[in-house]
């Protein structure tokens, strides 16, 4: 499952649509996102996101690099319908954490899929 380290360079600005970066083995058996490979090279990699304890985290690290939800636009072409835009949600708008929908170490369907079951896939 070796992927080119070129992915490194693509990381931050490449935040396309309703798709997340590929899930690959990044450190031992740990899965992580391809565009985050550079993070895992660091000795204290875990601490970049898990500030207090391994099992819990907030979206602080996501926001620090990628910006807040309202600044990350989703291409409407990738939505099943115009209501299905999680970054401009009528339910939450900015009142939601990135990790309600995005997961670093596993595939996950966004929160919206709890009700709107046919709108989203795991990513």
């Amino acid at each position, binding site marked *: 499952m070796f992927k080119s380290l070129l992915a490194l360079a693509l990381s931050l600005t490449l935040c396309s649509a309703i798709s997340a970066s590929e899930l690959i083995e990044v450190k031992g058996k740990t899965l992580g996102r391809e565009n985050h490979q550079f993070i895992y090279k660091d000795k204290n990699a875990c601490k970049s996101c898990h500030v207090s304890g391994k*099992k*819990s*985290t907030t979206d602080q690290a996501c926001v620090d690099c990628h910006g807040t939800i309202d600044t990350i636009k989703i291409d409407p072409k990738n939505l099943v319908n115009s209501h299905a835009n999680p970054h401009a949600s009528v*339910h939450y708008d900015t*009142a939601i*954490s990135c990790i309600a929908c995005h997961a670093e170490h596993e595939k996950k369907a966004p929160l919206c899929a709890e*009700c709107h*079951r*046919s*709108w989203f896939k795991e990513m």
Partner: protein
Amino acid sequence: MRDRRSFLKFGAGVAIGSVAATIPAMASTNDCGPAIKWDETHDIIIIGSGFGGLSSAINIKRSGIKSVLVLEKMLQFGGNSAINGGWFAVPGNPIQVSEGVKDSPALLVQDQIAAGRGMASEEHLTAIANRALDAFNLCVDSGVRFREGFNMLVGGHSIARAVRTVDGTGGEITRNLYKVAKSEGVDLRNQQYVEDFIMENNKVIGLKVRRNFRYPDLTTGEIVFIKANKGVVVATGGFAMNKQLCKLLDPSIDPTMDCTNAKGATGEVTLTAMSHGALAVHMNMIQTGHWGSPDEGGFGWSNALLSITWHEGMVVSVLNGKRFMNERADRKYCSDRILANRYEDNSPAYPIAFFNYNDHPDDDRVVRALRDEMAWKMDSVEQMATKFNIDPKTLQESIDLHNKHVAERKDPLFDRVMDTAKHLAPPFVVSRIWPKVHYCMGGLKTDLGCRVIGSKNLEPMKNLYAVGEATGGVHGTTRLSSCACLEGLAGGFIVAETINSDNKV
């Protein structure tokens, strides 16, 4: 704040899926038990960020109280309020006024009392209804948009008084109130699971909180103790998502029933309050809806779609291809009939409900249901029989028999009123049905000022307040639709006044 110490007793925590409490470094103990080392201190802590929590936060902050903290356990703010249908009962709303409809808080309360079947509290309902316009104006002033000229008569009301948000969800209200609260200096935090109250005798003085909690894992995060100098407001909503508790309270709610609620509606704070002596009432009054679909989450499109089916279509059991109920009867009757459809292993045999596609091809209720695959267009009886595993011949016979009853305008099988029934012919719009748990009428008993009543002496507990669905004994047997939105938002106005008057003395 770290060094501030007081000598207090720990209470018994109630946590769903219980976790061993991590007790932080203790100071010396005295007769009252171990000391608490507070991690931070605020004037008011509000637990929950739905209608009740957000309205309380804004109103309390505006009343002059300086440090207001909102704790929300989930990753998202808004609870059930953020996914709700956006129906909001407002007697005296501007659309009623412009249309010359005469309404008043008292008239609303009359309707609610009828639905409450003798179990509602007229005084509480009145206190809430009197704040309907305040609540509505808070929304409008916060940027919430309601549908232009839209004022509907919804189930159980005697008059059209429900307005609705443009997007048809309470999220329009919560996301705007969240922004306003934030901009006015309320401290709003997610991933904060309130695990226990810290009591000093009958008075709540702070909370034990799991900071950076990651739902649903109760071993995540770290324990902190937060002091609340002027009070704690419980705005944690209902417990419809807590299957174990629902089953204990109402054995007729069985585990095959899905729930319309957000996942966080598990009620542990209500139980925690009870463990410290709060009085809870009407806990077994749990509202279910027979209009649910197993093919979507939440409230979904099913209820609106079935508003066509109940009248124009028919409902058939997949077990024998036959009708089994009066489609237009009440919620309880229909629920019982539907739930009786079981396979031998007791798993649900979801009945199918259908009507003529060609009568409503462009109806929004149909279009979105088909689009989101919670209903299907079936071009022939054969196709429908195959999809739902029914004998095609019996299914055809059932439809023929029903059509005969439609023509005669008489239903000898179940005595349904047939005035709106239609002759059925494919293509059909077909959906599956199964009841869902929806709302908790029960919860913490409060006085008229939102003070939580203690069970020891039936007097208010000190510094403990509750608003919204977390309270009980307000609506009685049935909560009317569009009134929960009102209840939560109005509660924020009432509790702010109470807290200020309690802190003057």
